[in-house]
């Protein structure tokens, strides 16, 4: 199995190269076609037209677009994604600085979405045929229709403003220091043995993670229920019953494992969407992640930063797809044979 997964990962990584090249070229062209002038924007508003023209030449913006792209690509291959126009710092280092917070948030949200989705899916399946089924069905549709930013505002209002139960700004309490070892705050706080920082970081993570998780759990819920319906019509379920297995054994030992395959596919796709959903949630909760940075970059038309963040999103999605495919191999023996 390990060999199969290793081959799969190698194939995926090879395929990622042309995909990243195409995405970077597309991003580069689209951003250059926008009616913004990186040269003018990198100078103060008091700059004269002559100074802007000189800057444009200096930045190579007077050259043909393909030539500009090749210059950018050469630098990017050496780890230089350009300098943020608004912040004046290396775009790559800004991404590296903020990506861990977004990964922590997205993973926490995915865990919440998975727990709620699987729990909700089982509940919906459990209620089938009863009068509560339609109520639960309606509730899941209602949940499905609430986007993550609305969850963000609802949770902020209820738990932050009304109940005063949870903090909703930043990553950790202002009275605590923020360790910087790996960039992952939860991990870093444990590495230095500061449980108070860890607990504070968890409390700050709860609302944004739930806002994202709640928005993505209904889809998992409904797909799992549908998959369970399908699986329970399979012969092996009837045979399991004939062998005298309990309903719990059938569910956990057979049905859930097989129903999980389409759910994992969906979760993989959802994770990519969830990752982009961090944009608004991070702004609402002042969470210092890459989404927050992206919103600023778009607002300032900060082309080098948008390009660097866009490519990072692409890499993350490709990695998730590879992970999901590997999980498929683990869960589905047929794939190991073929």
């Amino acid at each position, binding site marked *: 199995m390990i060999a199969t997964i290793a081959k799969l990962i190698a194939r995926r990584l090879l395929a990622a190269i042309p995909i990243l090249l195409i995405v970077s070229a597309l991003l580069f062209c689209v951003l250059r076609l926008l*009616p*913004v002038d990186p040269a*003018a*924007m990198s100078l*103060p*508003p*008091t*700059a*004269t*037209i002559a100074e*802007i023209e000189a800057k444009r030449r200096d930045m190579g913006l007077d050259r043909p677009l393909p030539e500009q792209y090749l210059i950018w690509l050469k630098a990017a291959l050496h780890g230089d994604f350009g300098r943020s126009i*608004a*912040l*004046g*710092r290396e775009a790559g280092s*800004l991404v590296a*600085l903020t990506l861990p917070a977004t990964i922590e948030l997205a993973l926490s949200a995915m865990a*919440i979405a998975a*727990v709620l989705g699987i*729990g909700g899916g*089982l*509940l919906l*399946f*459990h209620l089938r*045929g009863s009068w509560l089924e339609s109520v639960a069905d309606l509730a899941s549709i209602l949940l499905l229709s609430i986007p993550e930013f609305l969850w963000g505002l609802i949770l*902020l*209002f209820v738990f*932050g*403003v009304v109940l*005063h*139960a*949870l*903090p*909703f*700004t*930043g*990553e950790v309490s*202002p*009275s605590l*220091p923020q360790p910087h070892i790996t960039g992952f705050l939860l991990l870093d706080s444990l590495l230095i043995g500061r449980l108070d920082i860890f*607990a504070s970081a*968890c*409390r700050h993570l*709860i609302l944004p993670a739930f806002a994202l998780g709640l928005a993505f759990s209904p889809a998992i819920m409904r797909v799992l229920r549908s998959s369970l319906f399908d699986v*329970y019509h399979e012969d092996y379920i009837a045979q399991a*019953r004939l062998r005298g297995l309990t*309903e*719990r054994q*059938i*569910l956990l030992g057979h049905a859930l494992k097989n129903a999980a395959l389409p759910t994992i596919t969906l979760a993989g796709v959802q994770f990519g969407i969830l990752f982009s959903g961090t944009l608004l949630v991070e*702004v609402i*909760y*002042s*969470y*210092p992640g890459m989404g*927050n940075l992206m*919103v600023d970059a778009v*607002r*300032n*038309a900060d082309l080098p930063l948008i390009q660097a963040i866009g490519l990072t999103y692409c890499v993350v999605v490709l990695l998730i797809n590879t992970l999901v495919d590997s999980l498929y191999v683990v869960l589905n023996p047929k794939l190991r044979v073929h």
Partner: protein
Amino acid sequence: MAFTLQRRSFLQLVMGTLTGTAATVSAPFVRAAPAADAATIGWPNDVPSWDPNQRFTPDAQPIFKAVFDQPLDQDPQLKLIPHLIKSWSLAPDALSMAVELRGDVTFHNGDKMSTEDFRYTFFERIKSGTKLDTANSWRKVDDIVIESPTKATMKFNAPDPTAPQWMAFLGSYIVPKKYIETGGLDNFIKKPVGTGPYKLAEYELNSRIVLERNDAYWGPKANVARVTIEIIKDPSARVAAIQSGQADLTVNLPVREVQRFQSEGSFAAEIDPITRVILLNVRADLGFSDKNVRLAAHHAIDKAALSTAFYGGAAVPLSVFATPGTPGYLPDFKFPYDPDLAKQLLAKSGFGPDKPAKIGFATTNGQFPSDYDIARAIVQMWKKVGIDADLQVIEYAKYFELNRGNKLPEATLYSWDNSTGDPEIFSGYMLNPKMPFSPWKDQDIGNRTLALFNIADYDKRIAGYRELERYAVENGACMPLLQSVVTLVRKKNLAYTRYGNGWMLPQTLRWS
């Protein structure tokens, strides 16, 4: 046989997985009561960089002013006052300026500040090729001659009559030469060292800034020992932060929210007019080539109604491109709201409600409070007199590119911030054809404006700008609308010093 999952099993499955999360929730979040020596501010934007000379960002100036010092300062009424510079003297030809620095100022690392740092900030750094916005504002500096550790003379290659004003404006903060040259720029940006009333204790990008009082400060010590600035970009989250007690003070809330706070009375809530002007930037050609149409468009706008509708009446209607109390303001000049006169002017040019003049109109959406709503209201006002405006939304970041390419429509709603209040930085910059701000390209007004940039005598310069402002408005070259406002909500026992330009300086905070 139907599958039945036992309720207990189901709950075990779900709740068991949630236990770990619940453990952290179980410790209730209790917001500590504010200590008398600490305050938390909800602020809408981060600093662009901790190099204060690097980028001109008006919203970041109050934060920079806490950590760094400017050569000159402004009092709450915006009068220029000594700061790191004890005295200054601009030559009659404005080609040089002698300055005398204080001798008792040290940087946060203990290094003494001297004219070496002054020269480094305003000359050496700029000439070294470091990419700084101050390279633009101080481009006329030919040299800075050091006469002693506290005395120096700035030499300009062209008259620079607003050099003193710029000493207290965007980006003009003295930085430590020795510290930057020995430790490097990256180290300075990571661990900035200034001479200001606060030291930077902690910084998390896009999250928070923690300031600790500089007990060795040369001037009046800050009242609050520790100020935490939480970067909260979303206005609703800033409202929630002040309401929940997670912030003690916050700024730039929607006017409607501030009015709600005012009516509830549990917080001190303010809507204050500042030295920021909301105006229409106009072209001299296309549908606005006819002066009658431009003047009609201006007469048709009910500025008082806009102020009442969108700023609770706090935004002062303006007739000139300067705010009350600033040197260029003309209190006796009024450009009236007169829709009948607007119709007459349009009729003279063959337009009317049945045959409207057609123009394009651009606005931002969300760049400043109620911008899009104001634009929509203006479109309706114009429609009543016979001007049909095609409204389009543009990104602020694209404004300069569109203007450079001559692609802006006849009118654009715009907001202009000038914390100095000097008229050169109001109408001088806006009507200067060599600068990228205005789409108005006309030789007559352009030449009048350029001539003012070389007048060194202060009174003569101010008189010139007053004349220019009147002339520009009477010719439809500029349509000032409102004096913009800043909103602020704070706990009632937390006071601060109000500045005419909207600064909320952490060093002025005090608990009662």
